[in-house]
């Protein structure tokens, strides 16, 4: 579904993605973790070319993202992206936030799009907040609207970039619950997160990154109980004992 072959990216001098190789199968849930600045956000932002890669091949759902000639609109429509800071459109209601892309990118008619929007908002537990504006919603609710916004595109892949990092502790679980349900329904997902409970429960594999490189790839139980590298051990100690 997502295939990185020797992917490299630099910000000036900084080698932010260093020879990345990774194959993500359909239905897999990949949790990406690592210290800040390790390139984990960049890793998933490349998938829909929010950041272009400079070297290597990145193929998503059979389409070559590394190729400048590829029509990204088509790929982007198949990928839901959830940001750390929600990034909802403040001048639109929750429902309008979820229907704008289906209407304008997928070409659905208004009735179809709204039906779908309602359905997805209901699915994330916000049936009673459909006509609210983002500023009238809590952080956790806003993030769930953002997830619903991704889901109304009927995506094949959902990407999450630290979806709970900007949330109060008691709101984190409501977002994780939604993500957990999605994972269990077989959605292909990549999530940058330090929610290790979530990773243990639903991740197919954990990708551990440092300084732009993938250091370890392992099923969560193996990674958490028996990391193969010193860097991984040190990282786990520091997040588990904080």
């Amino acid at each position, binding site marked *: 579904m997502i295939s990185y072959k020797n992917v490299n990216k630099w910000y000036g001098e900084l080698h932010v993605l260093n020879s990345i190789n990774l194959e993500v199968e359909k239905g897999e849930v990949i949790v990406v973790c690592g210290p800040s600045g390790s390139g984990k956000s960049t890793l998933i932002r490349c998938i829909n070319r929010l950041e272009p890669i400079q070297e290597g091949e990145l193929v998503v759902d059979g389409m070559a993202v590394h190729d400048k000639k590829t029509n*990204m609109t088509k790929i*982007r429509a198949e990928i839901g992206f959830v940001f750390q800071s929600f990034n909802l459109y403040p001048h639109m209601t929750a429902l309008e936030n979820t229907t704008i892309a289906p209407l304008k990118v997928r070409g659905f008619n208004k009735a179809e799009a709204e039906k779908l929007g309602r359905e997805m908002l209901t699915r994330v537990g916000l049936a009673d907040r459909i006509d609210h504006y983002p500023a009238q919603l809590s952080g956790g609710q806003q993030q769930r609207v953002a997830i619903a916004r991704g889901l109304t595109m009927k995506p094949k892949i959902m990407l999450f970039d630290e979806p709970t990092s900007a949330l109060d502790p008691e709101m984190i679980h409501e977002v994780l619950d939604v993500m957990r349900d999605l994972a269990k329904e077989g959605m292909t997902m990549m999530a940058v997160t330090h929610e290790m409970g979530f990773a243990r429960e639903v991740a197919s594999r954990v990708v551990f990154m440092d300084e732009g490189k993938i250091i370890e790839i392992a099923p969560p139980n193996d990674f958490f109980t028996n990391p193969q590298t010193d860097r991984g051990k040190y990282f786990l100690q520091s997040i588990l004992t904080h």
Partner: protein
Amino acid sequence: MLEGFNFRIIWEYMPLYMQCFAATLWLSGLSLFGAVVVGIIACAMRLSQSRILRSIAGVYIETIRSTPLLAQLYFFYFGLPSMGIMLPEWLTGVIALTLNSGAYYAEIIRAGIQAIDFGQIEAGIASGLSYIQRMRFIILPQALGNTIRPMLGQAIILVKDSSLLSLISIMELTRAGQVLTSERFTPAEGFLTTAAFYLIIYYMLKAFSGWSEKRLIFREAH
């Protein structure tokens, strides 16, 4: 103070004033519409990826903002015909006002756009919306809502600047005051009446901006 004030003569010239009031309204209205369009285009060019478009917009905006409107007006009125381009006076006036205010609108709209959090633009990109769609549905509705007040300020300046068109013998409100003054030697009556009509336009604009602000600004959003 008003004992010597000749109201009868104002009444006598009222048809002229009404005609000139209408002229100021449509000249300014047309220029305002043109200026907002030019402003959006110049702003889009200034924020574009292309270095050439960026420089063209930059030169246009800076030239206009650093030179007096009267000089620009005279350039269009005297300069263009000498280069072989003959335009009717009213069109010369509208072009000068449009290009002048357009530069200011470009900067006002740019400020409104740059105030929008980049994350929203990324969200738009990520969901597959095109540049035009992001502008149309995400950025401009917010940018225009945020900038109603400075836009109104610029509209008022444009209406007042339209008085300069009297200098290229277009019949508008200031010209009406000049006519009354020169025909009847009553400058106080002439220009006070002119001023009163500008005040009416100001209140019309203010009412419009209040109404559109209610429609465009999303109080819930802030």
